[in-house]
């Protein structure tokens, strides 16, 4: 009897843990109402310098750029990749959805590329969305990402696969910011 009770309690506790883990898992478009953020704020905008003539990119082009496989813009400007620091949900989204790599794989990719001379420049790492904005504002060939809610007029937002961040079916999403 006692043993049965212990097994039952363990089962309840495990079920509870499972429920808890499921509750924190990010489902695009589903967490908006629970965190008080709009769906657009949960979309990840790809931003470039306002002087950049490019207006749109495909997901494939974006992947090549973020992996350093494409070095220049059509106007000849050198591409500078701007990433946020590891551990940031925005970076995790880009790695997962664009680069389709883990953090380790991404780092190894650039270490290997620079070491072999296949890649000339590694990504610039910035701590905050404001830092990303300012970097892109200062560097004409820079490209980075920001939550749609962090975008302002100092940077230019690109359409990805013909969709703007506010459009339905926009491919890049970011989990809500962890509450403080």
């Amino acid at each position, binding site marked *: 009897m006692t043993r049965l009770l212990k097994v039952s309690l363990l089962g309840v506790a495990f079920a509870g843990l499972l429920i808890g883990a499921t509750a924190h898992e990010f489902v695009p478009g589903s967490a908006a109402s629970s965190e008080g953020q709009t769906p657009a704020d949960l979309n990840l905008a790809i931003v470039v310098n306002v002087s950049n003539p490019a207006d749109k990119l495909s997901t494939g082009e974006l992947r090549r750029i973020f992996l350093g496989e494409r070095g220049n813009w059509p106007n000849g400007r*050198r591409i*500078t990749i701007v990433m946020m620091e590891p551990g940031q949900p925005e970076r995790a989204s880009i790695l997962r959805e664009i680069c389709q790599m883990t953090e380790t794989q991404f780092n190894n990719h650039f270490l290997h590329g620079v070491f072999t001379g296949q890649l000339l*420049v590694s990504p610039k790492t*910035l701590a*905050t969305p404001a830092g990303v904005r*300012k970097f892109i504002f*200062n*560097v004409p060939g820079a490209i980075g990402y920001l939550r749609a809610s962090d975008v302002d007029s100092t940077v230019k937002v690109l359409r990805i696969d013909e969709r703007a961040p506010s459009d339905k079916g926009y491919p890049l999403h970011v989990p809500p910011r962890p509450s403080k």
Partner: protein
Amino acid sequence: MSPRNQPIAPHTKGLSTAISTSGRASSLLSRHSSSLLLFFVFLVVVVVGIFVSRDLRSADAEAQKMYAGSVLGMRRIGNMEYEAQETRRSTFYALSTKDSNLQVKYADQSREADALVTAGISEYLREERTPVELRVGTRLQQSWYAYLQVRDEVLASILEGSIQEAVDRDLKSGVPLFDRVREDLEEINRLYDEQAFQRLANVAATSRRTMLRLAGILGTTLVLAFVSVWAIQTSRVQAALQLAKLQMEFVASVSHELRTPLAVISSAADNIADGLIEGREDQQKYGRAIQNQSHQMAELVNQILLFAAANDRKIPYVLRVLRVSELVDAVLLSTADRVKHSGFTLDLEVAPDLPSVMGDLSALTQCLQNLVGNALKYSGSSRWIAITVSTARSGHGGPMEILIAVQDRGIGIARSELPRVFDPFYRSATVISEQIHGTGLGLSVSKGIAESMGGRLTVASELGVGSTFTLHLPVASPDNLPPQVVDSPSGVRAQQ
């Protein structure tokens, strides 16, 4: 009215009035010359004070302009120089690190500093400038924008991680452009410096001018004040000397006036005492002589006492409503004997229905008696005097007055002497030379009486033609009737 009864002809009267007026003016001028001088000093001080005040305002405005324009301008240029250096310095800081976060921070600092310089240049160009200043300002603006363009490229290279490229670009274009900016800022500073120097020179010139004017005003004031004091002192000394001279003459005259009747009385008394007088006729003759001389002496003494009392304001005048005929009768009665014994013809003309006057009968009688006495004394051989009583308005449309004029056809008074005939002790040179006896107090006393009664005494005269002294008395009316007997400050007592 016979021609003899007529007063002085109108044209003669006009001339005499004009003479009287000009004489009065010259008298006033001489009497108040020191006051005029002091007034002139005051005017000079005020005028120079206005100039000095204007100079001070001008210097103040120039100093404020210098501060607002040059000093603040130089300070602003200093700040701009600092911020321009800061723009460049922050760019170099970005070169010194590989941390993108720090590089972005330095880029921000550089942009904040360049915004201040850009705003400073725009403000400089917005203000009112000379063509040279505008040219230098515009050149600075162009140099600065060109430098910022290079700075942006340098910053971009640094952030991209192309350090060598950033350094090459800065050395090739950034350094020369920044040197141009610095030179332009120094040029503007130099212009401000020149402007400040010019304004300082203006302030110094204004200060020198003010100092000179102040020295001028002080010098002028001192000189004029010295002259004024000297004039006042001289005038006082002269007045004192004149008074002393008049008093000496008065003493001599009075002594003479007293000695003559005393000699007659003494001689008559001696003759009587020695038994030289025989018969009733001689006795009467000597008695009348003694009587006449005694009266003359008494009159003289009275005159002197009256003047002294009037001067001390000790005469209590009793004012009351008087009929003019009452006054004229009193005067005629008191002077009848003298007129008769002197062999004079006295023409009297009194206008009908004359209103009453307000005054002291005894004093007014004394006043007119003096005028008649003078007319008798100075008539020469004409042996004619006239008393005319009429009414007229005082001035233009003033109150009604009674005019009692005593006219003679005697020696008259010179134009130059008219202003002084009412001065106490004054006797004209002509009178003295013709040995006509007198004290010089009669007219002064009469004038004092006339003024105490609220009236005045005027004279119109022409040398060799005759004189007319006119007593002006205000007509008694309910307005000037005193309500009760009072002692006025001048010793006038009123009685209704």
